């Protein structure tokens, strides 16, 4: 058991150690400075720019940047929707899997465009290899969209007074060629040599040692699993995601997949420090996030290692809560993963969250409700940015000064946007859950929306059933993608309602920070004086943490009390 805990430390420590130089590399890339990879990537990027007609030096203001981002995302959604709708009759389908129903295709296409990867299908039977490749494409470009959006906000924070905030297409391409593609390639190869399949052959039929006839699903999984983690996407190639022994063959690959998913969210914070030349600010932000992360991860590891008290009573030798877990990862590492995957918005799982202890479920939910401790690829920082603006404003009120952030006055308009974004997250989660819980409580006949009565979609009774519904909307609104997978979610009710939540919860929290940053960038720069509230201090870090805790606690405590907390004390 002790060797299992010691496994967590190198995973977490090495991720941070790797993220610092990688953050520097990201900052230099987007500052247009020389990096050692220029000779390799410059020609490729120039070729892409030339073919697509992009002028990388043509700078956009924040509205143009936003329009370019939204437009190309819409195009990707439409493309993917039609591929999924017709995949059954398209090539690369050796297992003859069917096309998706329109509502499932809608949900899946949105879910991968928004970097969430909520999956209401199982990869083995629900997708052709062409469908998988299409989703893999979205995993790359949705992660690049997140990075490019964050870079615009970085830029807006850097310059004194400007409306020129860089070229979206250029930043998107650079995110793809310099960050996502090379690292994915390395990770994919590591996985392939550790036993993850990379083949275009279909299912294999074998007769087992004991004489059963079974099939074994395979596919081009190694390439897929690499970007699924690097881009904090999280959509599994197989139904069981990274609990599947082909998707995550051993303890080492498990560590590699954790490193990969933590890398960019960590690195983006350090990149901010290098980009603005304000390393201390980055360290304060990283510190706040790490405190939050540890507060979530420690109780989870403890409760998973302690095992299920109800099974304890049966008097057997319990080594951690093993329901829904794999022996090769063990309870502590699975507990660590479950929080890593929910604080950053990966949503891949190496064990089933539905079967984790009530306290762990509570922490997983809380991680997604806060949604800004590290956070997803690029967008994690954007979520945190909102809380910085709010903290600056509140601190300003407390000490009676005009709130300023990095030399820019924060005024009514910015605070309104920030408050709206901060409220949107609980609004989406709680109204979705309220709707589903209302249907389930009355056990209504759902008609076209769901075959049978509403409680039919639950896999567990009582407060755990409530948690299943709460988790699904929380995961959608946090663009996370993990689930309490017992929930029967492949039906019009869940496909459509979560699809709408996914869409709103992705783009509005990107638009908000971009708008605030854009507005601030065009304001007059006020040089720092003795009266300026310093944002790179521990005090301000504590203040930000308090704002996050108050907003999350006040909005979500009642819902958590009905779900995991009721189960824990029950």
């Amino acid at each position, binding site marked *: 058991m002790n*060797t299992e805990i010691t*496994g967590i430390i190198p995973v977490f420590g090495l991720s941070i150690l790797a993220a610092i130089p990688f953050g520097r590399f990201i900052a230099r890339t987007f500052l247009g400075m020389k990096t050692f990879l220029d000779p390799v990537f410059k020609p490729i990027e120039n070729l*892409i720019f030339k*073919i697509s*007609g*992009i002028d990388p030096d043509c700078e956009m203001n924040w509205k143009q940047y936003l329009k*370019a981002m939204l*437009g*190309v995302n819409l195009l990707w959604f439409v493309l993917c929707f039609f591929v999924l709708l017709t995949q059954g009759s398209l090539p690369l389908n050796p297992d003859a899997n069917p096309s998706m129903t329109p509502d499932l295709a809608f949900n899946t296409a949105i879910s991968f465009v928004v970097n969430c990867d909520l999956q209401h299908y*199982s990869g*083995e039977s629900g997708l052709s290899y062409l469908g998988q490749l299409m989703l*893999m494409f979205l995993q*790359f470009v949705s992660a690049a969209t997140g990075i490019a959006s964050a870079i615009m906000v970085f830029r807006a924070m850097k310059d004194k007074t400007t409306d020129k905030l860089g070229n979206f297409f250029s930043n998107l*391409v650079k995110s*793809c060629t310099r960050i996502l*593609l090379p690292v*994915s390639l390395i990770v*994919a*190869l590591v996985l*392939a040599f550790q036993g993850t399949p*990379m*083949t275009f*052959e279909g299912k*294999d039929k074998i007769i*087992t*040692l*004991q004489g*059963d006839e*079974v*099939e*074994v*699903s395979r596919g081009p999984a*190694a390439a897929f699993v*690499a970007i699924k983690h690097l881009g904090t996407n999280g959509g599994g190639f197989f139904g069981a995601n990274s*609990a599947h*022994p*082909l998707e995550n063959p051993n*303890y080492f690959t498990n560590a590699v997949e954790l490193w990969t998913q933590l890398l960019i969210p960590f690195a983006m914070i350090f990149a901010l420090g290098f980009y603005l030349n304000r390393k201390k600010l980055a360290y304060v932000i990283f510190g706040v996030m790490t405190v939050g992360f540890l507060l979530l991860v420690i109780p989870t590891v403890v409760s998973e290692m302690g*095992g299920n008290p109800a*099974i304890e009573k*049966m008097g*057997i030798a319990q*080594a951690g809560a*093993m*329901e*829904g*877990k*794999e*022996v*090769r990862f*063990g309870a502590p590492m699975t507990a660590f993963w479950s929080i890593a995957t929910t604080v950053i918005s990966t949503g891949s799982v190496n064990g*089933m969250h*539905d*079967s984790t202890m*009530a306290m762990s479920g509570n922490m997983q939910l809380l991680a997604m409700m806060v949604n800004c401790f590290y956070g997803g690829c690029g967008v994690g920082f954007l979520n945190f940015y909102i809380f910085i603006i709010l903290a600056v404003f509140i601190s300003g009120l407390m000490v009676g000064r005009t709130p300023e952030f990095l030399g820019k006055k924060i005024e009514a308009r910015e605070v309104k946007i920030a408050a709206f974004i901060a409220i949107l997250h609980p609004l989406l989660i709680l109204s979705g859950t309220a709707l589903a819980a209302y249907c389930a409580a009355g056990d209504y006949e759902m008609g076209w929306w769901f075959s049978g009565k509403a409680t039919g979609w639950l896999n567990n009774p009582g407060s*755990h059933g409530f*948690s299943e519904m709460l988790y699904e909307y929380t995961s959608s609104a946090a663009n996370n993608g993990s689930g309490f*997978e*017992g929930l029967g979610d492949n039906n019009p009710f869940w496909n459509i309602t979560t699809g709408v939540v996914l869409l709103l919860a992705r783009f509005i929290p990107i638009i908000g920070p971009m708008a605030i940053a854009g507005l601030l960038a065009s304001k007059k720069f006020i040089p720092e004086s003795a009266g300026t509230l310093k944002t790179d201090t521990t005090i301000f870090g504590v203040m930000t943490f308090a704002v996050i805790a108050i907003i999350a606690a006040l909005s979500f405590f009642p819902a958590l009390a009905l779900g995991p907390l009721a189960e824990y004390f*029950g």
Partner: protein
Amino acid sequence: MKNLFIQFRLTIILLVLFCGIYPLAVYAIAQFAPNHGKGETVSVDGKVVGYRRIGQRFNAFNYFWGRPSAVDYNAAGSAGSNKGPSNVEYLQQVQKRIDTFLIAHPYLKKSQVPSDMVTASGSGLDPDISAEAALVQVKRVAGARKLDESKVRQLVESKIYRPVIGTVTVNVLELNLALDELK
């Protein structure tokens, strides 16, 4: 309008890059991986009897058993039970598994039943069991095969994987294959 052309052409070139060049590059290099990237298989007398990483159903008395599976070890799919920790129906099922395990291993005390043998894995295809889970089955397997218990125990000990960092595991398929060769 100009943006639309850019978006369209950029999408096509990125499709070529990510759906074509990237997977093909991984595919090409994976040809040098074990079994050409098709998943490592295990053969007996030239016949494939399984994938090394994929668990199989073992319930015969002369084999070591793996963990309960929500998909009955058919790797055409994969899933956990997704039962919540306080679900009454689920807890009854665990109790039943404990009873069944004790009937098959009458020499065990209840407190010796390892939890991984009575709980379903995350994927339903878990290839491993814990070292304790393998060791408690030794007496039954040795009895069913009319083998010397110490010999079977020795075999199990040799198949326990104890890394410096990480979990202690026994691959059930490999253990059973070695068992078949034991005379």
